[in-house]
């Protein structure tokens, strides 16, 4: 049963606009950043077990979610991959109550197995002989990349600036690129297919993942309860850390 609800959420995610969300079982609609999809599905399973409230997750890029919400999509909770996108939601009056940070994620350098271009650190990415792929500065992972490169005073010579972090992972995974910058959580998903290298300063300047109750929530109470669960439940926090997210001091 639990599986089937996760399956429905996966199938419905792209079709949400078409009204696929009208599921009587789902009492809680969670809009979550794509990078949160699998962890939140796992956390939601435990939450449903404990509270009996079914959770439906719609996963997409953070800015796509905010766009969908501002065009009238109905949901109870929003979790984004960075604070800037959440601020947009707050400014558009989509949220009710203040957003709270529940996890952090930082950039790591990934290479194909064996590190064919012998990349040792950020400064090696200045070499145009190394095919480096990064996120474009307009998206959260790209903004983090630009911050990191600036503070290290490194001018990265990228061959491609992808719109999504999964595309960066894909290019390194398929060995079409020698190096890429992705989140620690992404690198963990491709263990064995990519080698990850921690970068000095990256963990100290992470992306924060905020969660907020939405103004149009059909059940504010259930929404708050889920947010609390996400922030304080030990199992929930453990799932996040196993996926590569780091704990946030509150």
């Amino acid at each position, binding site marked *: 049963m639990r599986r089937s609800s996760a399956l429905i959420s996966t199938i419905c995610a792209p079709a949400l606009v078409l009204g696929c969300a009208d599921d009587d079982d789902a009492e809680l609609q969670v809009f979550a950043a794509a990078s949160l999809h699998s962890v939140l599905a796992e956390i939601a399973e435990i939450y449903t077990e404990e509270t009996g409230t079914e959770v439906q997750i719609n996963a997409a*890029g953070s800015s796509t979610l905010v766009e969908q919400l501002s065009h009238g999509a109905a949901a109870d909770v929003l979790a984004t991959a960075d604070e800037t996108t959440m601020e947009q939601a707050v400014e558009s009056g989509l949220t009710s109550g203040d957003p709270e940070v529940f996890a952090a994620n930082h950039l790591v350098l990934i290479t194909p197995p064996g590190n064919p271009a012998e990349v040792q650190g950020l400064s090696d990415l200045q070499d145009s002989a190394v095919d480096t792929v990064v996120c474009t500065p307009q*998206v959260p992972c790209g903004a983090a990349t630009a911050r990191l490169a600036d503070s290290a005073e490194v001018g990265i010579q990228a061959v*491609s*600036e992808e*719109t999504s972090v999964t595309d960066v992972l894909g290019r390194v995974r*398929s*060995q*079409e690129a020698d190096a890429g910058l992705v989140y620690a959580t992404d690198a963990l998903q491709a263990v064995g297919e990519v080698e990850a290298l921690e970068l000095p300063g990256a963990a100290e300047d992470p992306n924060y993942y905020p969660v907020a109750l939405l103004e149009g929530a059909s059940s504010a109470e259930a929404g708050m309860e889920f947010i609390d669960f996400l922030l304080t439940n030990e199992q929930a926090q453990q799932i996040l850390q196993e996926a590569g997210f780091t704990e946030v001091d509150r």
Partner: protein
Amino acid sequence: MRSSWTRPPGWVLLPALLGAAVVLLPVIGMLSRLDWAAIPELLTSESSLAALRLSLWASAAATVLCLLLGVPLALLLAAAAANPNRFRAAGLLRSLVLLPLVLPPVVGGLALLYTFGSQGLLSGALEFFGIRIAYTSVAVVLAMTFVSMPFLVISVETALRGLDRHLLEAATVDGASRTQVLRYMVLPLLSPALISGAVLAFARSLGEFGATLAFAGSMQGVTRTLPLEIYLQRETDPDAAMALSLLLIMVAVLVISLAYSRSRSTWQQ
């Protein structure tokens, strides 16, 4: 005789208008969202101009490639289809050539990556000759050619089948070589189909997104075409994305109307 056919029964009006609405309403919806005052500024940003420039020349290059390779392919297909012994082979080849029409463009992009990428099928040969395709504008042109080729092949092959074979055979009997028949009879007769096929190929290239994204990458001035720029702008600035979409529509409408007005005059000659 022909006029009775060109005037359809009155009842087609309703579905015809609905058909037009399906295509036009979303465009009108988009136009209604545009911030017209901000458009000049949005369109003349450096990234927009770089994307437009790349889209235009890469689409033109892809169209030329489609013409150079697609016309011979269509000639071959039409000849094989006319020969009862090779009819089946022609059908099979045709369905394979038309594959990009049904393939999701992203899949096409992945297919190109597994062929021309640094780990792809031809990586050894490409490396030997020092040719690099991935992450270059060549990859963009290749992706566009891949998705656009069927449009040209269909147009030209359909027109070829409509040619008067007796006329062409008569020319051969009169001593014209096959190349001469092709050069002085077939190609001129085909010119409306060549133009419409080329326009379709150009328009398809201009709108190409998925294969380029999956295969070529995204880098300003090198691989980030107008559709990729729109997709990127959508992340942060939906108004800019809408303005760029308007630009894409205007370019496409301009090219299509120019080409069709020319091909109509060719018809009338």
